[in-house]
């Protein structure tokens, strides 16, 4: 047994845990996220209480309202779909699940939130029964709302709401813009396309999520504008796509003439976030796998594609510093972090870079940078920054 323990330790030693700035950042991220989304205590008890309440309410509803065995209400209408007409032919279809408030929401969304506000002549009427799970092809912009979720399907989009609670969707073709707010913390969202599964993990849902899933020429593309989304391709490993990033990093090369065009980002036109053509997660994984040369090539490719985006350039600067760190070029790494601070001071990455530089300077005083000065600089520049307390604590320790 002791031999086995030693052997497993040797195997573990061959895959060491990250150290230094990478480790510290990982811990800080976990603390920040964990405190922002604490686990719900007594969840099991509440689940039982809520479940029992719902069951009791359902029984009362059956008795009082008199729903018959077919699940139809007192008027015998059953589940219905809302057809939105524009002087004749339907322009949008939304599953209303037979609930009047849902129809009203669709109406409200289309009339008040549609890209073209002049189209106030839209009429919403109840149409045929449409059970959850029907494949819908939107003829024009279709807006659906379910709880804290808002979904927009562009014209020619073939999609399906798989579950009644709108937590699962299927996208066959076209483009779905999805927005999930934190107003409903239990929300979990999953969209399946023929070649990928896209999940909004409620554990990661801090500040909501907004993203566009497109399926063009049999390829899925995910653009995340706010929050984080987990993408699992059917033939590969899961990747976390962060705000401002796209998956896959490269857009599809072939586009069929007959299908919807690649994303033009017409949804939420007022709050556009530039889409990055590189995947920071993949670059970090490449660095950690020891393929620093490959990572540098990816960084340079990103720089060529994003010379005009300060935020992207700042992130690429940080990645370049991390590549140097992986090769133990500490001095160069600190220099690159400070380049980010100097050149892209207005970006969120500058704060991160300055603190990282200070941390490395503490660990490696031989690199020639004064850790105290860097920490003071951080505290002066970001007195309420996410690492302000840590910086103050480190500075105090250094002074002792």
């Amino acid at each position, binding site marked *: 047994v002791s031999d086995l323990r030693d052997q497993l330790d040797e*195997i573990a030693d061959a*895959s060491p845990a990250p150290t230094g700035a990478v*480790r510290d950042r*990982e811990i800080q991220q976990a603390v920040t996220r964990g405190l922002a*989304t604490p686990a719900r205590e007594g969840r099991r008890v509440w689940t039982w209480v809520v479940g029992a309440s719902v069951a009791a309410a359902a029984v009362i509803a059956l008795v009082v309202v008199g729903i018959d065995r077919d699940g139809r209400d007192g008027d015998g209408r059953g589940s219905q779909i809302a057809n939105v007409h524009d002087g004749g032919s339907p322009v949008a279809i939304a599953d209303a699940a037979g609930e009047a408030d849902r129809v009203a929401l669709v109406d409200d969304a289309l009339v008040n939130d549609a890209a073209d506000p002049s189209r106030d002549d839209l009429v919403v009427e109840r149409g045929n029964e449409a059970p959850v799970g029907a494949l819908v092809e939107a003829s024009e912009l279709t807006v659906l709302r379910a709880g804290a979720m808002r979904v927009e399907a562009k014209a020619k989009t073939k999609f399906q709401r798989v579950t009644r609670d709108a937590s699962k969707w299927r996208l066959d073709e076209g483009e779905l813009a999805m927005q999930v707010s934190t107003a409903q913390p239990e929300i979990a969202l999953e969209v399946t396309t023929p070649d990928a599964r896209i999940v909004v993990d409620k554990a990661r849902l801090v500040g909501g999520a907004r993203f566009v899933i497109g399926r063009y020429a049999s390829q899925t593309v995910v653009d995340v504008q706010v929050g984080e989304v987990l993408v*699992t391709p059917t033939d590969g490993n899961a990747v976390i796509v962060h705000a401002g990033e796209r998956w896959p990093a490269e857009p599809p090369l072939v586009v069929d003439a007959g299908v919807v065009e690649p994303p033009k980002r017409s949804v939420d036109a007022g709050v556009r976030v530039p889409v990055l053509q590189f995947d920071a997660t993949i670059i970090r994984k490449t660095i950690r796998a020891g393929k620093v040369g490959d990572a540098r090539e990816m960084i340079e490719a990103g720089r060529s594609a994003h010379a005009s985006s300060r935020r992207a350039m700042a992130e690429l600067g940080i990645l370049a510093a991390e590549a140097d760190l992986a090769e133990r070029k500490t001095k160069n790494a600190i220099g690159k972090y400070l380049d980010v601070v100097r050149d892209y001071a207005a970006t969120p990455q500058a704060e991160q870079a300055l603190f990282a530089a200070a941390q490395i300077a503490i660990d490696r*005083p031989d690199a020639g940078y004064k850790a105290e000065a860097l920490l003071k600089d951080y505290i002066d520049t970001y007195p309420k920054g996410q690492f302000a307390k840590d910086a103050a*604590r480190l500075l105090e320790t250094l002074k*002792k």
Partner: protein
Amino acid sequence: LVLVIFVRAATHPALDSDTLSRARTGDKHAISTVLELHYEQIHRMLVHLVGRSPDLDDMRQQVLLAIVQGLPSFRADSSFSTWIGGICVNVAKTHYRAKRVRSERTIDDGQAAIDDTRGPDAAAQIESRAELVAVERALGTLSLEQRTAFILANVYGHSVEEVAKMMKSAKSTTRLRLYYGRKKFYAALGRAETVARRETEGGGA
């Protein structure tokens, strides 16, 4: 050098009951200290449970997050390390189920996963040791439940009761997993050692 040692010592104190209490009440610094102190343990345990997977970084992040979220509800009816071990087991289980790693854990795929994560030095270090290759391959033949029970009992020295608690299963089930896990492991180890030795000798020739 003295300064570095001093800073490290000051920022990484031993976990005491006061730090743990403050961490449970949401003190950010105390939580960071707790995570820092158990970081290596978490990483090592994940490597033991799932092998050297490219997803180790994601899994470690999930464990850290779960610890921060679960600290307020931590009841000291087991040791803190055991509690963290339970979280690692849960994350590993979820990971396996989500990705169906189970079906990928054949000997060949296991080898591919190793190549993805290690540096060239680490690769050489492992491959030059036939017995390590054999151990990895033998562990790869176990189901996740068998492997988890086997590792927790034989490497971490937990009792059957503790393993059952960490895996949220019955003691009788845990005993069976341990029994079949050990049997399968040592049977596979015999075969794997022969194969690994042959490959090492063949590579050296």
